[in-house]
């Protein structure tokens, strides 16, 4: 009995930390409709700043806390709101997500540049206090965490439900013009919510740091866990979020206590947040078909069949020349860039045309890679890999049919996490040694490059053919108005299942190519985290065009190379990327459309 009590207390403490983080997420979402993927990264940077002040400069803890949470974090939130998020009001989900990813990638880069790795212990709060409950001990810091959670939840509840500002904040999400009736300007409300959200991220980060240690990525991962809590409250209800956070903490604590520690249960335990995320999403009511208002986006001009053929031939010509000229290393890099390009082509179909944002595309790449690795070296295994990925894509589409938009994107994230923990990391995928060897289809890197380029050209031409044809028109019609599509006799859900599987098939094909190019593959190659830069580069380069996919793939390949070769420059580049992403985000046609425009001016 005392044991149960102890696990309950620990669960509540963990839940309290989740609650602080999730509360900030919900606040910014419910007032600005931007789901801030970078929330954890803000917390991380602010925790570093806190370390700088409290530990490195010796300020009193309370003063450092006050400066960071009360001054720096809100100001940072204001900056983000002013320069990035404000412009995104009413933008599609994919774009608001990408802005958050940009912030995240930029902040991690900045933190690594400003605070290079070294041991940075951070003292807990009220270390000398604490209470014994039965066998277990609740430290002063735990109590502070719990107290903060309660205060935050209560404070936010009062703010949103009992004050004029709060009511106006909630009103202005759905109808900014209505907020004017409250005598407040929407911009100011949005700024306020970002300031508070950022302060809460900082508070969460600082509270967690003595427990999880100061680190660039851990905090970001923890916040993904907190998404589940935020979803329990449907990203709107603070009390439910609070309940969800505590529940999640309790479940995790009880799981340690009462689940067996065999390998399966170990992976199961790690998958609990993702499982819950899925359950919550599936329990959500059917998203209504959105009615009202013309939506459309000006894509880049779709080339005709002839132009596609000429373009593909030119592209292959250039690649063949490059393959003959460049050395092995560069050829290998280009080939990898084009493989990433094929992954991005799968997103052109899914996101660019279909309007569905996936945060789990790397999972399908992993599935294709595993299949090829398991079945060995014939070119046909590439096709099998694509088929298996397509089947799994159909499964996710079918399970997540009920939800759309942001919820669908989060469902793909949860799905990717589940696949990672339960399948890719288990011996059924990459074997007992954790990695598999894959025979290369060609031993020469130049031949590899040409092979990948041919596949890229074929898939690219295929994607354009789809766009020009019946399925492409349907996909875009569904994106613009699923309600109208339904009244015209289309089964909107089946179209989505089709798009998902087709896109997964392309990603799976890329995965097979990736595997034989790498020659070894392991679960670590398909980490959840990799999905974030993928989406970022897709949007920066242009998620509506084949050339955008090629450019994005090359950039994605170059990023780690630059980070390694020019650490200082890369830090700045990553920050710039983040900002660029946010700036470009309004235009899903990305960098590529700038080139197209420049080209057409020149001709005009």
């Amino acid at each position, binding site marked *: 009995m005392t044991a149960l009590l102890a696990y309950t207390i620990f669960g509540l403490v963990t839940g309290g930390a989740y609650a602080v983080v999730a509360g900030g997420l919900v606040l910014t979402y419910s007032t600005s409709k931007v789901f801030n993927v970078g929330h954890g990264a803000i917390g991380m940077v602010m925790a570093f700043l806190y370390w700088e002040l409290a530990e490195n400069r010796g300020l009193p803890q309370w003063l450092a806390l006050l400066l960071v949470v009360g001054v720096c974090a809100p100001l940072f939130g204001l900056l983000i709101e002013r320069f990035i998020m404000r412009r995104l009001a009413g933008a599609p989900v994919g774009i608001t997500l990408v802005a958050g990813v940009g912030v995240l990638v930029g902040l991690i880069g900045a933190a690594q540049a400003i605070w290079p790795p070294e041991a940075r212990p951070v003292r807990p709060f009220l270390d000398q206090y604490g209470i014994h409950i039965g066998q277990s001990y609740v430290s002063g810091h735990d109590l502070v965490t719990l107290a903060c959670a309660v205060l935050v939840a209560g404070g936010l509840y009062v703010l949103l439900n009992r004050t004029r500002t709060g009511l106006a904040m909630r009103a202005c999400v759905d109808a900014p013009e209505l907020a004017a009736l409250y005598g407040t300007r929407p911009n100011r409300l949005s700024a306020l919510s970002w300031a508070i959200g950022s302060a809460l991220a900082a508070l969460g980060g600082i509270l967690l740091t003595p427990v999880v240690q100061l680190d660039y990525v851990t905090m970001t991962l923890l916040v993904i866990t907190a998404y589940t809590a935020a979803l329990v409250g449907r990203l709107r209800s603070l009390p439910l979020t609070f309940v969800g956070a505590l529940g999640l903490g309790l479940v995790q604590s009880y799981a340690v206590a009462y689940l067996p520690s065999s390998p399966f249960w170990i992976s199961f335990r790690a998958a609990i947040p993702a499982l819950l995320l899925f359950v919550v999403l599936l329990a959500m009511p059917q998203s209504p078909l959105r009615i*009202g208002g*013309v939506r459309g986006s000006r894509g880049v001009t779709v080339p005709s069949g002839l132009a596609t053929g000429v373009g593909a031939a030119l592209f292959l010509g250039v690649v063949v020349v490059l393959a003959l000229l460049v050395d092995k290393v560069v050829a290998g890099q280009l080939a990898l860039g084009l493989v990433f390009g094929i992954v991005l082509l799968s997103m052109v179909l899914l996101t660019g045309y279909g309007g569905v944002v996936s945060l789990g595309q790397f999972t399908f790449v992993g599935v294709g890679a595993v299949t090829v690795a398991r079945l060995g070296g014939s070119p046909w295994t590439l096709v099998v890999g694509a088929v298996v990925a397509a089947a799994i894509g159909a499964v996710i589409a079918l399970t997540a049919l009920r939800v759309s938009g942001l919820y669908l994107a989060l469902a793909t994230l949860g799905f990717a996490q589940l696949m990672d923990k339960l399948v890719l990391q288990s011996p059924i995928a990459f074997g007992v040694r954790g990695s598999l060897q894959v025979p290369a289809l060609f031993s020469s890197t130049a031949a590899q490059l040409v092979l990948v380029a041919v596949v890229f050209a074929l898939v690219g031409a295929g994607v354009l053919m789809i766009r020009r044809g019946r399925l492409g028109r349907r996909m875009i019609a569904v994106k*613009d108005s699923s309600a*109208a599509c339904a009244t015209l006799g289309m089964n909107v859900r089946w179209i989505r299942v089709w798009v998902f599987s087709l896109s997964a098939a392309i990603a799976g094909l890329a995965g097979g190519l990736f595997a034989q190019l790498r020659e070894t593959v392991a679960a670590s190659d398909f980490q959840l985290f990799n999905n974030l830069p993928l989406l970022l580069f897709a949007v920066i380069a242009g998620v509506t065009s084949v050339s955008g996919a090629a450019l994005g793939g090359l950039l994605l390949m170059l990023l780690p190379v630059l980070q390694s070769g020019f650490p200082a420059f890369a830090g700045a580049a990553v920050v710039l990327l983040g900002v660029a992403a946010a700036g470009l985000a309004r235009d899903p046609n990305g960098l590529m459309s700038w080139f197209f425009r420049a080209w057409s001016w020149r001709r005009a």
Partner: protein
Amino acid sequence: MSTLRVEGVTVRFGEVTAVNDVTLSVDVGVTGLIGPNGAGKTTLFDVISGLRKPSAGQVLLGDADITSWGPHQRSRQGVARTFQRLEVFGSLTVWENVVVALESRRRPARLAAELLERVGIAEFSSNQADTVPTGAARLLELARALATDPSLLLLDEPSSGLDRAETDAFGELLRELVGEGRSVVLVEHDMDLVMGYCDVVHVLNLGRLLTSGTPSEIREHAGVREAYLG
């Protein structure tokens, strides 16, 4: 036997009852559905086309109870509609908008040009649909709905954005459609259009069916004058 019957349909949004126990039927010809803003006309269209499940009541098409059918199933049984707040596919061209609808019912794409000609917006064929004027976009929605060869056509304020001449042409088109044996339900604010072309008119007010009758009966109805015509 009527084409469509709506029996005791009620739609609640939380505390608000948008449609309250409405029963009416639609036969071949033009049926008008009028009422002040917020009377529940568009909500009733959403229920008939399947975009919204009623809180209570039934929708019958011919003999079949279609209350639980999805919108795409109803479309395949001949129900088509346009939207008060436009729902054209903005990223596609005007021509592609119609082709999508044709393909959805496995009809040949070449019919698209004919349909655009028929509603009178052939000149916009290759324009991206989010760039055409509102009136043309409404006619595009009509062409798109016609592309499914519907037996029951629900038109939600089709004439707003049309000038006088265009409205008259639209009226003639309505007659032609009825001549082809289709039922048309018209939600309209343009009383000349309603009174000039409708065979039967239903009046909704605050979610309830106020009265039904021929245009001349409606014109004389005191309650209607009070609630609506003022």
